[in-house]
């Protein structure tokens, strides 16, 4: 069985909430919708205080090409457009909607029936336009606007579409459950994206710990032309774009280049499902499936959450915060970030909430580096984290740039593998931020 060739680690997969059916969380009384839920420019609000909106109505329009629309997750009245505090204590411009009449009055154009809609007569450009209108972004975690990804730069041609159904993050199970419950829809979504990209071939990469999903998808693939299933050996960070391309089609994306350089486009399964809903059901992106999990969470599972619902409400629905919780992490344990404010609303980026007891989350005391090279072995991008941390501590940004710091995907393999508990990722991230700033300033000067 395949996997990617450089580095990687194998943390315990801890899929505690696997095979728990998706359950919708009750609608919030007030939805706080951030206008910047994606990579790129923040969206521009198109509603004013006092306006009444329906579910799915556009409330903030994309500001430029690399940006995404934001839609109302509940129906109600706009009470204010103000800054809210995000999960990390920083200000976040948001639109506040107060629900009225239950808050579930949808736009008439949205098809709410559960029936499958297989027929699509749209051209590729029309499909991309619909995706753009629906405000779809990559739901794997990076939140890069999908329509931008589906529009390769002139001169490059996509050859193969790769679907990321890997879900290599420990604990998270939302993609897995989505595949089991909405397999057909995902396949239609894949065909739609294939048509938009004008490619003949799609590969679905699934890690081997999701045997039921592989079986289901194999069966479905027999009925869909051009879609292959590629079971992959368990290895983190297989869900990284470059790693997944290497694992599935054995091509390596050059340093600093995009996957399109090797003719590949990668999309997450959750994004594919959102594309299906947007194109076939006219439903914009205003809710997503997220995993709420942790050793001591009573009702851990996969929940369908409207954006704007506070994390506190979602956790409450899942049985509340266990007493011994030390850290609440938004996202998975490897790539996610600990939050300090649970009153922050769930949005496009939130793929999971992980409640970790102290015994699991506490960091150990760092000691000196002993040059064992485990971080070098683990780094999936072929970097030398032990060297980069020394350079970051000494503020040698030029040297870090020469050592390809910008290739770092911040997967955390180095930190995980370090026997000396060095804060490798912290410093590498600092270096990446600073060097990124220097590079941007340099290109702005030119």
């Amino acid at each position, binding site marked *: 069985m395949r996997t990617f060739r450089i580095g990687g680690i194998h943390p315990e997969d801890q899929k505690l909430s696997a095979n728990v059916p998706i359950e919708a969380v009750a609608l919030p009384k007030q939805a706080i919708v951030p206008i910047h839920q994606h990579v790129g420019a923040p969206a521009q609000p198109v509603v004013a205080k006092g306006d009444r909106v329906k579910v799915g109505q556009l409330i903030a329009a994309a500001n430029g090409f690399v940006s995404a629309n934001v839609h109302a997750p509940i129906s109600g009245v706009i009470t204010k457009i103000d800054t809210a505090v995000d999960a*990390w*204590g*920083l*200000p976040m411009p948001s639109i506040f909607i107060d629900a009225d009449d239950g808050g579930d009055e949808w736009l008439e154009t949205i098809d709410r029936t559960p029936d499958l809609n297989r027929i699509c007569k749209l051209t590729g450009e029309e499909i991309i336009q619909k995706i753009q209108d629906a405000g779809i972004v990559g739901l794997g975690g990076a939140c890069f606007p999908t329509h931008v990804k589906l529009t390769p730069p002139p001169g490059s041609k996509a050859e193969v579409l790769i679907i990321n159904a890997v879900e290599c993050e420990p604990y998270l199970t939302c993609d897995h459950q989505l595949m089991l419950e909405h397999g057909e829809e995902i396949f239609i979504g894949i065909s739609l994206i294939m048509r938009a990209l004008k490619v003949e071939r799609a590969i679905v990469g699934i890690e081997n710990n999701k045997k039921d999903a592989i079986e289901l998808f194999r069966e479905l693939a027999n009925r869909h032309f051009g879609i292959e299933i590629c079971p992959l050996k368990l290895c983190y960070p297989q869900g990284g774009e470059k790693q997944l391309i290497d694992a599935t089609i054995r091509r390596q994306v050059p340093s600093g280049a995009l996957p399109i350089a090797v003719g590949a486009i990668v999309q997450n399964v959750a994004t594919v499902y959102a594309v299906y809903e947007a194109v076939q059901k006219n439903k914009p992106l205003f809710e997503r499936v997220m995993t709420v999990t942790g050793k001591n969470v009573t009702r851990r599972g996969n929940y369908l959450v409207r954006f704007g619902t506070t994390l506190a409400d979602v956790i409450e629905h899942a049985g509340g915060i266990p007493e011994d919780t030390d850290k609440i992490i938004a996202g998975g344990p490897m790539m996610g*970030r600990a939050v*300090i404010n649970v009153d922050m609303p769930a949005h496009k980026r939130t793929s999971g909430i992980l409640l970790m007891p102290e015994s699991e989350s*506490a*960091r150990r005391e760092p000691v000196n580096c002993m040059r064992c090279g485990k971080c070098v072995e683990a780094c999936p991008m072929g970097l030398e984290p032990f060297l980069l941390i020394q350079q970051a501590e000494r503020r040698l940004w030029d040297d870090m740039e020469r050592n390809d710091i910008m290739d770092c995907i911040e997967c955390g393999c180095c930190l995980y593998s370090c026997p000396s508990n060095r*804060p490798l990722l*912290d*410093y590498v*991230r*600092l270096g990446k*931020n*600073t060097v990124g700033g220097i590079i941007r300033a340099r290109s702005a000067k030119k």
Partner: protein
Amino acid sequence: MNLIVISLITLGLIGCISAVVLYLASQKFKVEEDPRIDEVESVLPGANCGGCGKPGCRNFAVACVAADSLDNLYCPVGGSSIMTKVGEILGLAAVENDPLVAVVRCNGTCEHRPKTSHYDGARSCQIMHNLYAGETGCMYGCLGCGDCVEVCTFDAIHMNPETGLPEVDEEKCTSCGACVKACPKNIIELRKKGPKGRRIFVSCVNKDKGGIARKACAVACIGCSKCEKECAFDAITINNNLAYIDYDKCRLCRKCVVVCPTNAIHEVNFPARKTAEVKPTETLNA
């Protein structure tokens, strides 16, 4: 014996030829350098701190010699006395600047500003700043990891373990500005040392509205503009709910210190007040 003589002669010859070649080469490729550069460098402090904006004292000397006027060149460590000497060497007029000192504009000690979260990552303000707002409710205040202490080449700034805030040693501070650049929250400011080291400044950079700021920290500037009204010299301006004292206009009358309801305005190196005034602040704080 013969062997030794031959080796001595050969080595001697090689030595002589190399010496001639080196001499000729050094004459041919001689670089004419202004002797004044060495002179200027000899009067500079030689700390290579980078406070002037140049990579080191030598580069500053080169820049001084090359410049037509010293208007934009100033060595903060040496101050006006050194710059006058540099001016004498070069025959240029030196700029007179008042001595500055680094000032930490945050008074959010552990008791004033309770912690709301616990940070267990790498001890670096910059890293913490990139991750989130900080361990307390105030997203503007000092993070307390000591990046400023680390960059100071003069051992002039230290963390006070009791308050968790950095403290500047006025005697040692040369106002090179390294800590100002290192602080991700822009808390440290270079202010005029003032006559006899006396100065008044707002020890807060919180731009939140009064209520929010006060909730996060007991000694935050709430932007109430009482000091602005009290000031007879227009030295105080309020921007984004935050007061700022212009040190060029301030006459050190200390009236603003008394009216501040949250004790956010600090006075340094003043003698004790003559009459034991009851500050209105205490009643408000209670």
